[in-house]
């Protein structure tokens, strides 16, 4: 049904111009073609997931509408959370805030922890990639440390910082840093000898070499690491916040569970998914922008 409606629109648009003005037709035709092609591309990408989403909703509704179901159907989720959806900005003090505030608190923690991980991770990755001795010394340690699950760090962080906020940021940091280090190191090790030779002939100093050759050359690898890192950060923050409490989407979910507000959990999960997706796309997009032209040599 949906597909039909969308598809007929460009068709009518195409039919119009020759009738409207004959003189302009040759000039405008390519433009219309372009729009039609863009619309078709967009439709091909948007419509299939929409259909699947709608089917899932229907399925879920049918499954959970029966009496005695433990989870609410989508219609009930919507009714229960209408207030939260339409007023994300309320603030009644404490942790009784709109979803916007919870999400932004979580995002702030991620921003801190992740930025720190990016800077330290790229620096350490460069060291490990550049120096054989640094690699021999550090790599085995990294390989062990990176297998420690994020939440296992939390009690230690709480003991060290005696406060939830820095502990959560530390967990983000320690979770996302490993893929950044490892991928950066691989990128640095893969810098073609030719580029090193060019830098040597021009006599770039180490700092110039880092900014002008190493970073751009390793950028595709670095961004792979950064992208894995942002995903892990978002995974870790939700879990960490459930334990540290306070404002944040993780604790919001936990709190909703404790008060048996199942619909709120579902709404929160929906937001968490969307934001995780957007974060991933942001880093991917940034990577594309920065490494424009780099991968072709």
């Amino acid at each position, binding site marked *: 049904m949906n597909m039909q409606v969308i598809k007929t629109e460009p068709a009518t648009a195409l039919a119009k111009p020759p009738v409207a003005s004959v003189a302009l037709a040759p000039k405008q035709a390519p433009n219309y073609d372009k729009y039609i092609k863009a619309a078709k591309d967009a439709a091909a990408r948007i419509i299939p997931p929409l259909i699947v989403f709608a089917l899932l909703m229907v399925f879920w509704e049918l499954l959970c509408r029966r009496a005695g179901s433990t989870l609410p159907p989508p219609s009930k989720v919507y009714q229960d959370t209408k207030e939260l959806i339409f007023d994300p900005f309320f603030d009644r003090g404490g942790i009784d805030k709109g979803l916007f505030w919870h999400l932004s608190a979580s995002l702030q923690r991620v921003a801190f922890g992740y930025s720190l991980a990016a800077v330290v991770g790229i620096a350490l990755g460069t060291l490990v990639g550049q120096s054989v001795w640094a690699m021999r010394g550090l790599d085995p340690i990294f390989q062990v440390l990176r297998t420690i699950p994020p939440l296992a760090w939390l009690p230690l962080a709480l003991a060290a910082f005696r406060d939830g906020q820095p502990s959560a940021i530390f967990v983000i940091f320690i979770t996302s840093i490993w893929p950044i280090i490892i991928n950066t190191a691989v990128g640095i090790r893969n810098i073609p000898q030719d580029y090193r*030779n060019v830098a040597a002939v021009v006599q770039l100093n180490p700092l*110039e070499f880092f900014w002008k050759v190493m970073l751009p050359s390793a950028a595709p690898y670095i961004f792979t690491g950064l992208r894995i890192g942002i995903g892990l950060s978002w995974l870790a923050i939700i879990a960490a916040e459930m334990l540290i409490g306070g404002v944040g989407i993780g604790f919001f979910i936990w709190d909703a569970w404790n008060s048996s507000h199942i619909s709120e959990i579902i709404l929160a999960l929906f937001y968490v998914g969307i934001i995780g997706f957007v974060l991933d796309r942001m880093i991917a997009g940034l990577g594309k922008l920065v490494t424009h032209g780099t991968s072709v040599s």
Partner: protein
Amino acid sequence: MTPYLKLDHVDKVFTRGKVSSEVLKDINLNLGKGEYVSIIGHSGCGKSTMLNIIAGLTRATIGGVILEDREVNSPGPDRAVVFQNHSLLPWLTVYQNVRLGVDKVFAKTKSRAERDEWTMHNLNLVQMTHAKDKRPSEISGGMKQRVGIARALAMEPKVLLLDEPFGALDALTRAHLQDSVMALHQKLGNTIVMITHDVDEAVLLSDRIVMMTNGPSATIGEVLDVPLPRPRQRLELASNPVYLDCRKRVLEFLYERHKFVEAA
């Protein structure tokens, strides 16, 4: 007369673990200022290794390189290299690739505006100003090599080192670039060391041709003077007896006396 550039008893042994292989043995070569010398030899005999030793990118195991009475053993812009596969940095534009070297070499002696002008001047020498804002991936192989030459020239090197600069190009582009390099040499008077495996290219461009024996332990087998007056025209040379004789002697060296034996 003291030579401008001198390779003095250069040996090179590569050692990897317990295995060591002697690539170059007892290389002695003197170059006068403004001379154009080609190094020709079969693939794998150690030509690039020799060039890299002059450039300072590889250290000689024994012996050394002397440029204007000073030993050189680390890389520097006074021995600019044009690499075989252009080696332009793909994230920089054509202009930025050339400017990178200019900024380093003339950091103290030229103002910002002068460095810009000098960069453009060198792009103009190789006729690449039209593509100055393009990235290496957007220009042809011949153009990339031109930019590589501009980058090297812009450093005002004492010696210009060319490692099979036209090896990857088609015949027409190659001929065109050879003419450009000849014209630049005529105009700027650089001292040039060029590696090639193309006999015609060697005879056409060089004042002297250094012929390498096969490796391992390759050394200089013979040095041939090319007494052709400059400027040289490739069409006229095609029937020039001196040219043909030089060509024949190089061919004899490569394909009779030092035939390349394929490793079984």
